[in-house]
């Protein structure tokens, strides 16, 4: 029988029962491989409940650093009887099945084209432990030990990781080491190593392993956010929780006093209301949420746009519409975020591609919010938000100051500077503001969602209204110059075809580009990093005959925005969409692009267009 043989390039998937304590064991497995110098892309696939339902953890071991989801499974660690059949079916021919062989299973439960590896985990644990909870928890460590022996992970690396993990409870260190060895010893005595092997390497470099939500929360700390108001919703909750943790560590005075205020609000409307109030009063404030929360916040986002109040929203996108697939990933809130609010509104969006950019853009968003005096969205998604990703280390330039934007001070007012809250003095569409209580007699104004003149006085005069709306458009033009610029990867050969992608699609896209190149398909690739789109984006489209737009939603939302904002001929932008809730893969992109390239060419735009 064929057996897959691979070194540092295969996929292991763990099938577990939610709440069984497997998550930390699985994380330990991934971390040990990273510490062996081999890059890893790991993803949780979990249900929307706390205990009992199936959950999976997929680890792609990839010396070449392909951090997108690959698809397919080479080694299935089948620990959940409930999902046994589909788990077994998912294994690639020639692949491996690891299972708990304590209870015999009938032959029809297996496949003949895979290698079956049984370890009597339950029996081993029952012989050693008495308490049911211990049996359960240590079983996870026992299988990590067994797997390590099967695929060649250095046990010392795992031992060290366990020692760090239990540094605060030293008693547990020895017990965990013992469990680890029990698994490894069984394998050494009874089984042979698999064709899948981990070899020590040096491909990880100084990269770090971190969740996007944590990184974004840290970005908020570095961006100077002091007020956070939020309402729990998957997959954004861990962002607020991480912010609490970082603030406890880095923003607490020796006497215990907090240089921050975090409020768990009663709903998302109150969350954004608190953010708007704090922003109005000169503090940097944010909320984090997901699609349903954005829907609720919409009226306030419109107020922030029209009354020009800084706010930051981290939208960790999940599968919509409605409650949709709350624990699956998508990039499907683009339109609802970009144009949130009634009337003519539009808002800047930032598209980080990994935790490192979650941090960078997280911090930047507060400068942008103050500079542009409007709501800035940072668009994460569940895939990058809730999974630890390998990414470049975080960096900060200590010489950099926070940009508070155009704020008129007491001295400015004293010096007799003309203050009109909605007056465009510099031609960039951005007016000056004052913080409340700046000056006893000057600089006060009344903030409202109703139309007003440049001096903030109520007016429904048509021309006054139109001038203001035009100024807001000018401000949006200015935003184009402040949003992180797109990044382009040029094909090795000149080509008339391009591809545009963003966010968590990046790793899969980068891998796909390499694969396509080996197939002779050359594409220039542009990663857009924010909205409004800069001229560079429109030039890129203009300079190619055809530009594929890759995204993780049903309707091609980014494509719609490109068409809408750039007056682009839709025929020029073939759409590739992946929206089943799993992260997009290189395999999918390659196959879709190959198909479309093979298909009759799309209409070439005529000169007159």
């Amino acid at each position, binding site marked *: 029988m064929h057996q897959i043989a691979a070194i540092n390039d295969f996929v292991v998937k763990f099938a577990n029962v939610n709440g069984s304590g497997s998550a930390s064991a699985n994380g330990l497995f991934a971390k040990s491989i*990273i510490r062996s110098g081999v890059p890893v892309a790991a993803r949780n696939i979990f249900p929307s409940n706390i205990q009992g339902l199936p959950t999976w953890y997929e680890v792609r071991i990839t010396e070449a650093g392909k951090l997108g989801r690959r698809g397919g499974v080479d080694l299935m660690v089948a620990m959940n009887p409930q999902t046994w059949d589909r788990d077994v079916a998912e294994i690639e021919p020639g692949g491996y099945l690891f299972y708990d062989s304590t209870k015999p299973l009938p032959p029809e439960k297996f496949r003949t084209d895979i290698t079956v590896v049984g370890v009597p985990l339950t029996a081993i644990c029952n012989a050693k432990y008495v308490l049911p909870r211990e049996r359960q928890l240590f079983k996870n460590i026992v299988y990590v030990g067994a797997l390590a022996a099967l695929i060649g992970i250095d046990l010392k690396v795992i031992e060290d990781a366990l020692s760090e993990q239990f540094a605060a409870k030293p008693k547990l260190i020895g017990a965990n080491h013992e469990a680890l060895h029990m698994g490894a010893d069984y394998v050494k005595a009874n089984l042979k190593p698999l064709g899948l092997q981990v070899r020590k390497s040096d491909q*990880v470099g*100084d990269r*770090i*392993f*971190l969740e996007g939500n944590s990184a974004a929360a840290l970005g908020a*700390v*570095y961006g*100077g956010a*002091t007020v956070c108001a939020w309402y729990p919703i998957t997959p954004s909750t861990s962002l607020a929780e991480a912010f609490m943790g970082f603030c406890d560590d880095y*923003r607490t005075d020796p006497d215990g006093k907090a*240089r*921050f*205020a*975090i*409020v768990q*609000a*009663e*709903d998302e*409307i*109150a969350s*954004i*209301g*608190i*953010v*708007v*109030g*704090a*922003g*109005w*009063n000169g*503090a940097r*404030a944010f909320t984090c949420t997901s699609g349903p929360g954005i829907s609720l916040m919409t*009226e*306030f986002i419109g*107020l922030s746009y029209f009354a020009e109040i800084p706010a930051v929203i981290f939208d960790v996108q999940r599968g919509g519409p409605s409650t949709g697939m709350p624990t699956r990933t998508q990039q499907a809130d683009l339109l609802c975020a970009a144009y949130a609010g009634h009337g003519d509104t539009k808002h800047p969006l930032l598209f980080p591609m990994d935790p490192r950019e979650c941090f960078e853009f997280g911090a930047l968003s507060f400068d942008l919010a103050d500079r542009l005096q409007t709501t800035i969205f940072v668009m994460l998604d569940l895939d990058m938000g809730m999974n630890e990703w390998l990414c470049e*280390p*975080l*960096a*900060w330039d*200590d010489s950099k*100051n*926070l940009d508070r934007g155009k704020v008129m001070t007491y001295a400015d007012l004293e010096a007799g500077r003309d203050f009109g809250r909605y007056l465009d003095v510099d031609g960039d569409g951005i007016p000056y503001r*004052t*913080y*409340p*209580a700046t000056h*006893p*007699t000057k600089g*006060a104004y*009344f*903030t*409202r*969602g*109703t139309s007003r003149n440049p001096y903030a*006085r*109520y*007016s*429904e*005069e048509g021309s006054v209204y139109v001038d203001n709306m035009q100024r807001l458009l000018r401000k949006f033009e200015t935003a184009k110059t402040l949003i992180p610029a797109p990044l382009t990867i040029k094909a090795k050969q000149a080509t008339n075809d391009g591809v545009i992608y963003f966010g968590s699609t990046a790793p899969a896209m980068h891998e796909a580009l390499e694969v396509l190149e080996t197939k002779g398909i050359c594409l220039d690739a542009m990663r857009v990093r924010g909205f409004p789109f800069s001229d560079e984006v429109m030039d890129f489209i203009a300079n190619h005959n055809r530009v594929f737009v890759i995204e993780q939603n049903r309707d091609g939302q980014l494509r719609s925005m490109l068409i809408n904002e750039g007056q682009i001929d839709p025929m020029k932008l073939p759409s590739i969409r992946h929206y089943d809730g799993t992260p997009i893969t290189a395999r999918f992109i390659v196959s879709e692009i190959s198909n479309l390239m093979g298909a009759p060419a799309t209409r070439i735009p005529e000169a007159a267009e």
Partner: protein
Amino acid sequence: MTYIAKPKFAHPNLKPNSLGYTRRDYEGSVSTLCAGCGHDSISSAIIQAVFELEIPPHKIAKMSGIGCSSKTPDYMMGASHGFNTVHGRMPSVLTGANLANKDLVYLGISGDGDSASIGLGQFAHSVRRGVNMTYIVENNGVYGLTKGQFSATSDKGSKSKGGEINHDAGIDLVGLALQLGATFVARSFSGDKAQLVPLVKAALLHKGPAFIDCISPCVQFNNHNGSTKSYDYVREHNEAVNRMDVIVPRNPIHVDYEPGETKTVTQHDGSILSLHKLAEHYDPSDRVAALAFLSAKAALGEIVTGLLFVDPASQDLHDGLNTVDTPLNELHDKELIPGAKVLEALNASLR
């Protein structure tokens, strides 16, 4: 409607307070409300209270929702920053503003529609959260701005101008505020300045959520027979539990009370509320008794006014969050950004 700037002329008789501000300095633009609207009387009481308390106008942040009532912040304290937010959501915006700068005086003005209908949730949560604010509901029992629909505080059985009967139970915001943990709860009547001005003063000096339900007849849509929020009805059914004076700590304390009829309450900042008892046995320091008294009087069709409850040792949201003394909006980069070194250590822990 366009903005009308109030003509500025110095009246020779305007006596400045000790900060040098005259009462005129606490006024705002000219009201655009209907002549006789109760809301204008409340504005005038607020102006008087702030003037008498000698709060510099710019140290006040005026917040409101949407409605005729919510327009009034524009008609007072023109040198204060104001924020006319969205319908029913003033409490959250005020909360955020307060978190950003604990040093300002936060005045939230709302309507019964704004607070008891669309904004009931935000009203409740801002109160239970202990936000340091004066929250005034200008309660006319109708939606004034949208032309006279019943609001959630309209009493069951009351009649609209068109003769329609309200079948829904009315919400009593005072009872709610008591249950939710407000540390200052009062009710008053726009037509009773003598009672209202000291109440507003006491509320402004109070630390924590101070709530005043102020009945404020809508002359346009709710001042007819059959309305329980009309001038006549309220005058006839008003049961005042007390009258009060407020003595600010910086003034020499002289109280003209008659022993046996007066109860004094010292608030956190040292201000003294001197309550002249009208109703027998009324004790404003007992939350449970206040609720019982309120229900008993409501059953008799009486509207209890006055200071119903005060907890002089109240705490606020900032106490709960243990925030630094410096307002958060004044913290500098150094106090906010942990810096590159911290990041290096953090990176190391993530490998």
